[in-house]
């Protein structure tokens, strides 16, 4: 009965109801997008960091991995010190740099180069061929292979730098492409190659001898990460350790703008939806004062009337929210495609990451707002003095 009465009232003013549902739908879409934005980056970044199971990164003191060109000197000493810590399961040293390759079409193709240990690396996944283990082997990204007009099995002439005075490449050597790889931390379209650490060190010359850019460490027991981190910082003072949690906190700090924007716009969306339904229910109650007091006069309980009016507001919010959630997924894809074009952002990062909990959160907030929006006007309408209101309605 309650539902039939609510439906009858809503369908009496179809265009008004339709507009209210549309308004709530747009608010719900925005709310869902903002809930997704507020949590999406964190979850996406955490997934990226833990993609290969490394919980700790070690960078030169005071820096973050690849945040500067600073490198860790005498890395073999550090590798030995890390190997003596029994909690560490895998040590993956990484040296960053650039290589330049003369393509078949005559162009010089440059790419970022990651020197590491193929058996312990956490930067790429091989999708064809194998990982580079020999001294003159590389694995390359599709973007690099396309630009260099090369494929697995080809031999490339690569250099690690230029010597402008001699007008020649520095650190040249032939490299055989042994694998096609997907690089986890590179941005869309970025050319990248992986090669053994010692190969890149020797290509970069004496300046890079026994140096690495950072380490990635896999810890046997997740619960021991902080202890290992403290031990490393105590025993190896020339490096800064970053756990996944610390990295998340730093990302939070750098991207706090988006979280705060999400909070503000989410709150505004909820407020707009709430205001819209409150206005609609208030006007609806004012228009039906006569009807309401007649119901009261024939013995319908005040609570029952309040329930019916609250149900109307909740129904608008619920239907609007369902439409809005679908709309929100579409707009989130569009907004994500805009933000994904940030220069240098890893392609695997999503700003708007859908999780079922986001949809439930948005739906719950909107339905809650719908209930709250209906309570005051319905209570006010149902509490009017019956005789006086009937007389006012009759006289006009």
């Amino acid at each position, binding site marked *: 009965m309650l539902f039939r009465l609510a439906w009858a009232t809503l369908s009496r003013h179809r*265009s008004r109801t339709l507009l209210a549902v549309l308004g709530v739908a747009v608010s719900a879409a925005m709310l869902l997008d903002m809930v997704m934005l507020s949590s999406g980056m964190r979850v996406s970044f955490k997934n990226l960091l833990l993609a290969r199971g490394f919980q700790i990164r070690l960078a030169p003191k005071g820096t973050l991995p690849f945040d500067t*060109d600073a490198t860790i000197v005498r890395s073999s000493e550090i590798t030995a010190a890390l190997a003596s810590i029994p909690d560490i399961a895998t040590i993956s040293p990484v040296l960053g740099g650039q290589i330049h390759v003369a393509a078949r079409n005559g162009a010089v193709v440059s790419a970022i180069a990651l020197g590491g240990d193929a058996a312990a690396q956490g930067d790429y996944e091989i999708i064809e061929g194998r990982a580079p283990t020999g001294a003159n082997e590389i694995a390359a990204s599709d973007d690099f292979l396309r630009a260099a007009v090369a494929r697995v099995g080809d031999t490339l002439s690569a250099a690690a730098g230029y010597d402008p005075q001699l007008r020649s490449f520095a650190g040249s050597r032939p490299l055989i492409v042994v694998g096609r790889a997907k690089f986890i931390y590179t941005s869309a379209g970025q050319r990248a190659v992986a090669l053994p650490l010692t190969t890149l060190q020797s290509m970069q010359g004496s300046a890079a001898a026994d140096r690495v850019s950072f380490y990635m460490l896999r810890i046997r027991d997740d619960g021991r990460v902080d202890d290992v981190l403290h031990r490393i910082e105590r025993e190896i003072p020339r490096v800064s350790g970053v756990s996944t949690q610390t990295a998340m906190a730093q990302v939070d700090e750098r991207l706090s703008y988006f979280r705060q924007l999400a909070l503000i716009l989410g709150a505004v969306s909820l407020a707009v939806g709430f205001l819209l339904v409150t206005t609609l229910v208030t006007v609806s109650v004012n228009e039906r004062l006569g009807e309401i007091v007649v119901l009261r006069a024939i013995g319908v309980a005040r609570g029952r009337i309040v329930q019916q009016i609250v149900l109307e507001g909740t129904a608008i919010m619920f239907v609007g929210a369902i439409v809005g959630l679908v709309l929100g997924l579409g707009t989130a894809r569009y907004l994500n495609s*805009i933000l994904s074009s940030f220069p240098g952002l890893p392609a695997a990062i999503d700003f708007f990451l859908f999780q079922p909990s986001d949809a439930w959160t948005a739906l719950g907030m909107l339905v809650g707002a719908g209930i709250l929006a209906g309570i005051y006007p319905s209570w006010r309408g149902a509490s009017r003095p019956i005789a006086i209101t009937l007389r006012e309605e009759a006289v006009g």
Partner: protein
Amino acid sequence: MIAALLSAAVLLQQIDTLRPSTLPRSIAIDERLAADRRIKLGDLLVVSPTPGGPGDTVTVSAFVRRRADPSEVARAEYRVRLHLHQLQSLIGYGDRVDRFAIATPSAAATDSAMRGINAPAFGFRAYRSRDIAVETSRTFLVVSRFHRAIGVITIVASAIFLLCIMLLKVDERRRDVAALRLMGISARSIVRSVMVEAALVAVIGSGVGVFIGWSAARIINWHYRGVYRTPLAFASVTPNIIVLAVSLSLVLGLIAGFVAAQRLVRVPALELLTGRHEDRAAAA
């Protein structure tokens, strides 16, 4: 690389209270570093390329403030400025630099200088400052596109909200409209009066909105300038934005008023007065 090392690898080790035998070179440090570590002009510091390694004693001769550069806003690290030769020798960089900045007297001279440099260049290249600025501001183009997309969604939501409110407002006055119609006032006059009312509501609402926006911009600037320790303006309400917002609101208000009024004047006056049109709609 020098820029990166300036910012990170040259680490502050300790405040040296002993006067060195030779006159130390000067250094300019980030004012945030000075504030955080209570460093004063004239203090002696030891800078070294590696933590705990050998370094040079320098005297703090100036504090530098970060430029209001959006591309640096999220970077929290400190920066110090050293003499070129001093840094080259400190980090063993040899006779190398990362880049040169070249001033030219005119646009034509810039073109000719670029041709002159790039023709024989190997391993380096000359770029116009303008092109570099375009490249480094790509991040903000993305943010700007994102803001525009959010703005479009907000406008759609506002338009629906405004239309809904106007519809309710006009609907509420159906008896007045019916009485006016019965008195012989033309439908066109009624539509016009409703549209004028809608325009007034839109303009007053825009005025309030501009005030809220202006206040919000002040709060946002105050908050983010503190968070990022920068003089940058993060939000600004410009005359163009005000004109756009008020015009948009006015147009939306007029459209909403017109649509709402048209719905009422199409219904016969007597039905409007008795509310029979609603019953018919409900029955349908």
